[in-house]
């Protein structure tokens, strides 16, 4: 199995960005690298069938999310984060940064909710693109996003933070 030059170029050009997405999906570096490598291996096996290079990113993202779903089925969420998420109800340090609290709260989201949050707010996909990528309806994307944001706002990590009363922003 000798690697296709175009595939090598794609990996070299895009692995940095893809690793960042994988990190946001998994929450820690080791699992992100594992997820990315599995995703790229699957892409490599399908490479000859993906001739239109502009479509590769979409394929890889879809494969990554689907692969991560299977990872989720095999692993407990608590094992997925560099810093294990705190249990609800623990005291929040007064100086806790809002980002730290949000990161902890994100770790407690369900697998679909987290994937949709990453696709919508990091990858900047539209609701329609997110729905197409995950194979679900636009309505499901809307409702899941809304529930994810509500869960974040209600999470114990943020509930006692004065900034927790953040209004939900536009859900475009």
């Amino acid at each position, binding site marked *: 199995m000798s*690697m296709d030059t175009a595939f090598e170029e794609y990996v070299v050009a895009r*692995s940095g960005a893809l690793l960042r997405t994988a990190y946001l999906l998994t929450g820690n570096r080791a699992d992100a690298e594992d997820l990315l490598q*599995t995703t790229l291996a699957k892409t*490599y096996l399908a490479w000859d069938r*993906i001739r239109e*290079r502009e479509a590769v990113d979409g394929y890889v993202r879809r494969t990554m999310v689907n692969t991560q779903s299977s990872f989720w089925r095999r692993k407990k969420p608590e094992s997925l984060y560099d810093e294990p998420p705190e249990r609800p109800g623990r005291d929040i340090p007064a100086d806790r940064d809002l980002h730290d609290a949000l990161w902890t709260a994100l770790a407690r989201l369900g697998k679909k909710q987290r994937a949709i949050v990453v696709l919508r707010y990091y990858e900047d996909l539209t609701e329609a693109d997110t729905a197409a990528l995950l194979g679900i309806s636009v309505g499901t994307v809307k409702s899941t996003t809304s529930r994810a944001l509500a869960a974040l706002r209600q999470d114990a990590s943020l509930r006692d933070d004065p900034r927790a009363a953040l209004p939900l*922003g536009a859900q475009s």
Partner: protein
Amino acid sequence: MSPLDDEVRSLLQSKAAGVDPAPDPLGGIESRARGLRRRRVLTSVSGAAAVVVAVAVAVPLLVSGSDTATRQPGGTPTPTAETPFRPANLLPWPRPEALEIFGSSINYLSPIGRLMGEPDYARVGYQPLWTGSVEGSAAVTVGEAWKGTEPARLVTVGAGDQLGPVVDPSQSVVAFAVGGDKGTLIVVAAPDAVVEYAADGSSYQQISDVGQAPKGIGLVPIEAEDPNDTIRVTEADGSVVVRPAPDWTPVDTTTPVNVLDTWVHRGYRQVLSTAAVVHAYEQATGLSGGGQYRSLYDGSHLGVSFTIGQAWTSGEPAHTVALLSDGTFFLGPVTPRDPWLLGTLLATRHLVGSDLLVLLPRPGAGRIGYSPDGTSPFTDVANGRSDLNPVAVLDRDPKATADRVQVHRGDDSVILTEGIAKLTCGAKDCG
């Protein structure tokens, strides 16, 4: 107080920005792919009995043309389900075996999706009517495409992609004229029909079942200036249909005078496809027909590939453009004749708190200086990497308004001092 979704966006961007690239991104992929392949072989062997049962059920569904049947011509490499819906207005002449010429369904579904405004090709339904090669294009497919539960529309891909009208099942002939500077008329009729063509409207010659044209398919080179040409189709029951041949306008392949054909390509090998740049350019300008792109520089920044060059359509001057692999597109002004410097500015989500500024001087120019506020001294910004020299790739403060660039000749005399805002203003601002 910021909305929560702004905080989430900010959090994700800052967390992602802290992830360093893997030192050896290619390492381990091959061995893992081999493992996956072995696992798939084992799985397919153990699942053979189930496959037999599934085929026995699926075949009657497909043959009956049930609305619930699921089709996937050409083996779309998508892990998600495709559209099961089949519109009621489909014509009864599909020739799915011909699609093998494309190698993969992604090669025709992706452009069809773009034509129909559906970015996810897996959601596009397609029924081919004819696929083959015509002069000037190795692979052309004519067929019916649909998205969601909309009626099917005629479409052709491969030689000037075109979206045609909604399919009318009462019509017994589908005719398309395709091509760039040379045109081909493609007529699709019932498989047992005889297709004829007359350039003058009366002297018919059979164009189906001759040469590479199979039965029921007519192929003939056409000229744009045939106002009287007609198609005649004789069906198996003896009924005859006569229709005017569709018009076709040759694409002007003349290169615009402002194309910088003396500028050598610099940087890496072009990774982003020319078709992607042309598509983005046509979307941004609203122009179409004979779209072309010439890359001048290709590079990568923080793991994101980009290409910078000139794009144009038939008969129009070339614009300076840039495209990132994340889809971010820069439409610059009409490229000046023989400029000393081109600049592109891209606001991309991969950069937090800065924009990507690329300064591309005329080959042979000397060093490039940059002043971030217009008053502080110019500092050299083109680094010494052989693939970049003297191209400058900078993270620019999005709030900068007075920053300037200075280009030197080879003898170090200043040849140009220019404001970045003026250099990189978009086509709509600068005309």
